[in-house]
């Protein structure tokens, strides 16, 4: 694959920064990282693949990550990379969108694949229509901006011998700031379906919310992350939106996907298509999921899940 000349990256999580630096190396000849964090993080970015680090320092207590948008815009304006990559998060989508507006372009969000053609054209793939299809898009602007899903790139193994420069960058006043009054941790556990080696998915077939307890218990036993279908998160609101596979463009690639009470609606199945093994339990023998599973069991979840728990798989 041909490579772009200059790629810039920015992330609001250390693990994402490592992935994006490595991704930058795959796609480009030169990688620059904008780092908001400690000096150690700035140095690490070089080990992870950056040739230059533009270090914004530690985030100030009274500022939000989004308040650094103009500072980043100033750097991009000066250096004009062909591609600016951010990790896909709620905050970084604000940064990406505001930058897109400032540079009169579109930001492509939740990118899942990057392709550079023979003529050097960049194409970016993302899921659309609730995960039904992959849309390949070609940025037409001089600088493309994209947010990248977790796990799209793999962090480099060891770069302790890499060399690079660190340049300190002062904060620039950020236009229309919102005033931060309070910040508190959410009581939900962080979910990272993209990185999970095993995933247990649950669908409407579970029937009642109380049934989820045994699903969580089974997932714990299997050391698996729990996912769900859209109706459970959006209709019933039994599970948090971070857990559903569908419209948000999550595409998981676990070693095993165990689908409990999931009929196999097309958007959901696209999201789990990359699992090595798909195992399904459903009471309806005609459920489409059996056509797309390696192993299927037709029967009652309330008999089968307790039996699976007892078997200590």
């Amino acid at each position, binding site marked *: 694959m041909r490579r772009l000349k200059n790629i810039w990256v920015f992330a609001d999580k250390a693990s994402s920064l490592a992935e994006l630096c490595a991704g930058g190396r795959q796609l480009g000849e030169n990688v620059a990282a904008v780092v908001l964090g400690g000096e150690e993080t700035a140095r690490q970015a070089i080990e992870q693949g950056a040739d230059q680090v533009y270090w914004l320092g530690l985030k100030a207590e009274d500022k939000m990550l989004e308040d650094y948008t103009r500072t980043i815009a100033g750097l991009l304006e000066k250096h004009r990379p062909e591609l600016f990559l951010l990790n896909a998060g709620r905050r970084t989508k604000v940064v*990406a*969108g505001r930058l897109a507006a400032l540079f009169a372009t579109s930001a492509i969000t939740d990118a899942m694949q990057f392709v550079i053609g023979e003529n050097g054209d960049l194409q970016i793939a993302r899921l*659309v229509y609730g995960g039904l*299809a992959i849309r390949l898009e070609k940025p*037409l602007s001089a600088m493309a901006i994209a947010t990248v899903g977790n796990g799209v790139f793999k962090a480099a193994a060891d770069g302790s011998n890499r060399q690079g420069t660190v340049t300190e960058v002062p904060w620039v006043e950020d236009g229309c700031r919102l005033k931060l009054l309070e*910040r508190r941790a*959410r009581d939900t556990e962080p979910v990272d379906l993209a990185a999970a080696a095993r995933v247990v998915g649950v669908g409407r077939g579970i029937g009642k919310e109380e049934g989820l307890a045994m699903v969580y218990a089974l997932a714990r036993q299997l050391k698996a992350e729990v996912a769900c279908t859209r109706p459970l998160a959006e209709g019933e609101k039994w599970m948090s939106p971070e857990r559903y596979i569908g419209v948000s463009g999550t595409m998981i690639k676990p070693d095993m996907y165990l689908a409990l009470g999931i009929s196999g609606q097309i958007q959901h199945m696209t999201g789990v298509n990359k699992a090595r093994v798909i195992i399904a339990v459903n009471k309806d023998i005609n459920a489409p999921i059996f056509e797309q599973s390696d192993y299927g*069991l037709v029967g009652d979840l309330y008999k089968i899940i307790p039996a699976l728990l007892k078997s200590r798989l």
Partner: protein
Amino acid sequence: MKVIVCYKIVPEEANIEINQDGSLSFANAEWKLSQYDLNAVEAAMQLVEAVGGSVTALTVGDQKIENSKLKKSILARGPEDLYLVKDERLKRADTHLTAAVLAAAVAYIGFDLVLCGEGSSDFYAQQVGIQLGELLQVPVINAVSKITPAGDRLIIERTLEDEIETLELSLPAVLAVTADINVTRLPGMKEILAAGKKPVTEWDLHKIGIRHAGPRVEEVSTLAPEQVARKKILVEGDSEPKIAEFLDYIRKELK
């Protein structure tokens, strides 16, 4: 408070079919209001019910936005009037073009607050609201899960991946609300009948001063991914021996 709610017309994703070659068929997919925009409409209605003011609905697109059922459907949810910016050049509008057209339109209409949904249920880029706010040079933020009016300002709650923020902002502003900020109300027969009598204004790009309507992103292809071939081994029944048979398969696979 003068609130504008932006909404998008999208195909019913459950009825999109996949052709033999992986391309998509929209023949049986009816056009509908994008699901998450309904939460923005509801949030606007609740805000105006609390502090007074008006809610205006706005959409931009090609001739599909003129569908009378959809116009009624949005107005029945409460907005007192509707603006459409219709132009065939908006058929394949990307987020940049959509935001630029909305920015021009809301500036013409006048507003204190623009509300958007968290993303459209077709492309779900979650970008238009953010770009719109920056183009208008007003405070803009996403993931808003609660809005509390406080004089000429708003206090909002923002639900992020692992934290909740409380923020204060001045008006005018643009906010993108989450899908769980509220439970949307279903309009009754009275609201549906009244919707047909509400004023609808239709503009084209020329009217709002936009001459160049070029996208910054080009669609190369949209294809359903090929499904991986699976073994399709099926065990029928939940008796003990059947479950044991099933477990044997799984144990071998997970070894």
